């Protein structure tokens, strides 16, 4: 067997997005040695792409009468629970809503430079499902500000950064996770990390769909590593379709148009030039009476937020995505099967100042001047609410020694995430996971590395290079994307999902015999083959959970079970775990919300 390097740390952090980097800082502050691993270069994780803002109830914004809007953690708590169809873990949401403001202010101390209000505070913008202006932002590049700030700070507190390393397996000593194994992308050489505690911060998985805002990294490796190590996964059917992905030109399909466009007054139109979101059928019962009922009121809200209700374009993402889907299905879409989003009425100066990267993105890539012309948009895969079950206080998972935070973890967002809640998620729980792992590491000894586990992973890794005449991973990936896009997208049925499942199982069989040309040195085909196996497994779990949940809630929209079933499904999360080689899906009752939080919801909903 070939030699491989071994690195030892108190805490190993897998992932250098916002969650991973915030965990680094926390673990270092607790006095631990820290290694962080990422698949791309430092600072290029999904976090960098986030645009709209980071949600935290700082209550900085004032109404025209000079009064503060009145935001508080309680309102943020209620909005998040409501947006998530009450499938969220109440304690996770409580911690989140209470700690987010502190974490955002801390970013400012670390060097983040947010947009300002006239009073000199951090400026906040409105977003779907947030009752008040709550998204702290920097134009439309908030994620860049966040990741660069954390990157610079983390570099300053000291860590070892292993860039362009893909980890493929968590190593276990008995029940406990004691390290991880993977390869350097550059050389293909294998590498082992030995650690007293491991934080998983590997982000989401959207690459199994055709139209996606995710990069090549979003293949769900972290999720699958945890799952194979025995961790419980939760809410896997809940995948967010962002209502506004670019729909034209074809090369740009799926790329995100920030919700900030609607937050800054952007409106949605069908091919009859109607603001279709005003169709009362599209507003769910939970939000009735809380949104403007005429376009005129919606327009007035832009300048007077106190005396007018917000336009229905700012309903939650699941709702808007469904409405767009229905408009297009009913033949009211554009020639490219999309709807129009326009913000040109806000004026060139305003748009260029508040949405500079959107302006640039459409101008350079789409030949569209958004200060004058509409954009064509259609839902795109964006975010995964489900993931590894994590305990709210320390982010520990069901596997000892393994902690999870950020998009890879489940519990905070329930059935649908509100925009802006992810960037605050990753700083709140990134910190908690780093601290939790550090505390665990301090009372633990380093475990033993089992060469047999490494060897079985090497076998999987090497197989496509050694197999001749096997399947092309790109081809299988394309077929997977096709079936997930048509059968496991916004509108789901038992029949469609069963078809998808059958196809996935077929593809899993074919994926056992893949071959790729070339050697191990920076070989994208070889990398794609390993990623594909992770994606196929993840897709299987998504589809199984979507079949199991026989109701419509949040992102899960079943045409054959169109109603929300509060009495039964409203009280249950779906848990997926590995039993031998098979997926086991179980229902787990939601933890009961304490009386005082129920009252908070009553008061603010």
């Amino acid at each position, binding site marked *: 067997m070939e030699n491989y390097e071994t690195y030892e740390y108190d805490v190993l952090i897998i992932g250098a997005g916002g969650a991973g980097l915030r965990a680094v800082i926390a673990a270092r502050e607790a006095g631990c040695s820290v290694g962080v691993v990422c698949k*791309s270069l430092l600072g290029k994780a999904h976090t960098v*792409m986030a645009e709209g803002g980071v949600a935290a109830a700082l209550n900085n914004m004032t109404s025209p009468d000079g009064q503060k809007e009145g935001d508080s953690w309680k309102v943020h708590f209620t909005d998040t629970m409501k947006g998530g169809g009450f499938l969220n873990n109440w304690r996770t949401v409580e911690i989140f809503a209470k700690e987010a403001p502190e974490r955002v202010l801390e970013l400012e101390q670390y060097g983040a430079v947010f947009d300002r209000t006239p009073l000199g505070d951090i400026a906040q913008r409105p977003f779907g499902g947030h009752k008040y202006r709550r998204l702290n932002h920097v134009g439309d590049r908030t994620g860049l500000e966040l990741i660069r700030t954390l990157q610079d700070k983390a570099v300053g507190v000291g860590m070892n950064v292993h860039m362009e390393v893909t980890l493929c397996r968590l190593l276990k000593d008995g029940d406990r996770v004691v390290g991880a194994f993977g390869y350097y992308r550059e050389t293909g050489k294998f590498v082992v990390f030995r650690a007293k505690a491991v934080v998983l911060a590997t982000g989401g998985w959207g690459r199994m769909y055709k139209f996606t805002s995710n990069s090549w990294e979003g293949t769900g490796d972290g999720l699958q590593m945890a799952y194979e190590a025995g961790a419980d996964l939760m809410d896997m059917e809940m995948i967010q379709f962002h209502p506004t992905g670019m729909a034209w030109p074809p090369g*740009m399909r799926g790329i995100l148009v920030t919700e900030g466009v609607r937050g800054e007054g952007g409106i949605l139109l069908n091919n009859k030039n109607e603001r279709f979101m005003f169709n009362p059928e599209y507003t769910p019962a939970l939000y009735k009476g809380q949104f403007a009922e005429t376009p005129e009121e919606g327009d007035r809200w832009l300048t007077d937020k106190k005396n007018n209700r917000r336009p229905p374009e700012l309903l939650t993402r699941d709702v808007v995505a469904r409405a767009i889907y229905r408009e297009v299905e009913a033949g009211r879409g554009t020639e490219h099967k999309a709807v129009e989003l326009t913000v040109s009425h806000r004026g060139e100066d305003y748009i260029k100042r508040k949405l500079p990267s959107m302006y640039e993105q459409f101008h350079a890539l789409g030949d569209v001047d958004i200060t004058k012309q509409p954009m064509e948009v259609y839902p795109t895969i964006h975010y995964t609410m489900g993931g590894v079950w994590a305990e709210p206080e320390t982010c520990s998972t069901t596997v000892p020694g393994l902690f999870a935070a950020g998009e890879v973890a489940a519990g905070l967002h329930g059935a649908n995430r509100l925009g802006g809640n992810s960037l605050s998620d990753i700083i709140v729980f990134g910190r908690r996971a780093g601290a939790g792992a550090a505390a665990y590491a301090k009372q633990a000894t380093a475990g033993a590395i089992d060469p047999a586990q490494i060897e079985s992973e090497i076998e999987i890794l090497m197989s496509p290079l050694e197999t001749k005449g096997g399947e092309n991973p790109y081809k299988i990936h394309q077929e997977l994307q096709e079936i997930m896009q048509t059968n496991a997208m916004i509108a789901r049925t038992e029949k469609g999902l069963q078809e998808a499942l059958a196809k996935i199982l077929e593809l899993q069989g074919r994926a056992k015999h893949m071959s790729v040309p070339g050697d191990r040195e920076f070989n994208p085909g070889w990398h794609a083959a390993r990623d594909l196996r992770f994606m196929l497994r993840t897709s299987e779990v998504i589809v199984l959970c979507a079949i199991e949940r026989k109701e419509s809630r949040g992102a899960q929209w079943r045409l054959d079970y169109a109603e929300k079933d509060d009495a039964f499904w409203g009280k249950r999360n779906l848990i997926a775990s590995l039993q031998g080689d098979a997926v086991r899906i179980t229902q787990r009752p939601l933890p009961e919300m304490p009386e005082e939080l129920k009252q908070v919801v009553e008061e603010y909903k």
Partner: protein
Amino acid sequence: MEKITLRVFRGDNVSGGLVDYPVETFPGMVVLDAIHQIQAEQDSTLACRWNCKAAKCGSCSAEVDGKPALMCKTRVDQYPTGTIAVGPMRAFPHIKDLITDVSWNYRMSAKIPPLTPRPENEGKPFKLQQADVDRVQEFRKCIECFLCQDVCHVLREHDRKDAFFGPRQMVRIAALEMHPMDSLNRREQLKGEAGVGMCNITKCCTEVCPEHIHITDNAIIPLKERVADDYYDPIRGLLTKIGIIKRDTKAPLSSVPNDLTKIIVHEPRPVK
């Protein structure tokens, strides 16, 4: 659908050359799409970096027809001849195909201490006007694509990576130096190891910056002036001495220990 030819540099740090690939275009196609098409349909060993495909992450830097550019922001329809040459950035050690070793940039960045607020502002929300942060925000748009580093002749032709951190890091230091809340005096580092004096204001870096940061005019020249004020202006020195100009009250920079943070990208590289 039209056909174009992508002429891609293939090879590693030992040998290599240009290889032609026919590519079918579609409306709005960018160079990165063409590379992806080649990977999926013709040669999956072709190596390149990318992440966002929306000019937000700075991963896909390359030289397109000899010009440093983001592949995801470069439309193929702007090349009327139908042949587009794509190669790696040349200022950094080559690894394979379109991939270079850019880790040096991260190592230099690690030498720059992050924002260090003045004690009186520590732990309290900042009060800042938009006008006070406009300039700093321009610098913070940087996506670390390192195209400016690639084009800067100090690094590219003269390979003075030992003496100059390069325009990207000048932008980073400028953002800190001009941050109203920072308490460190960064000029010593600027003049010393960061080597602001190495820049002779050719403005090539500004021209290639995909974020349109005015690197030379807004970052480097003001930094040069600040350093000059401190070190070389005799009148200023005199006025400071007799107390007419207030001495800078910022704390001298405590430099970051060298191996506090290590950037590891598999070293030593295997010899061929």
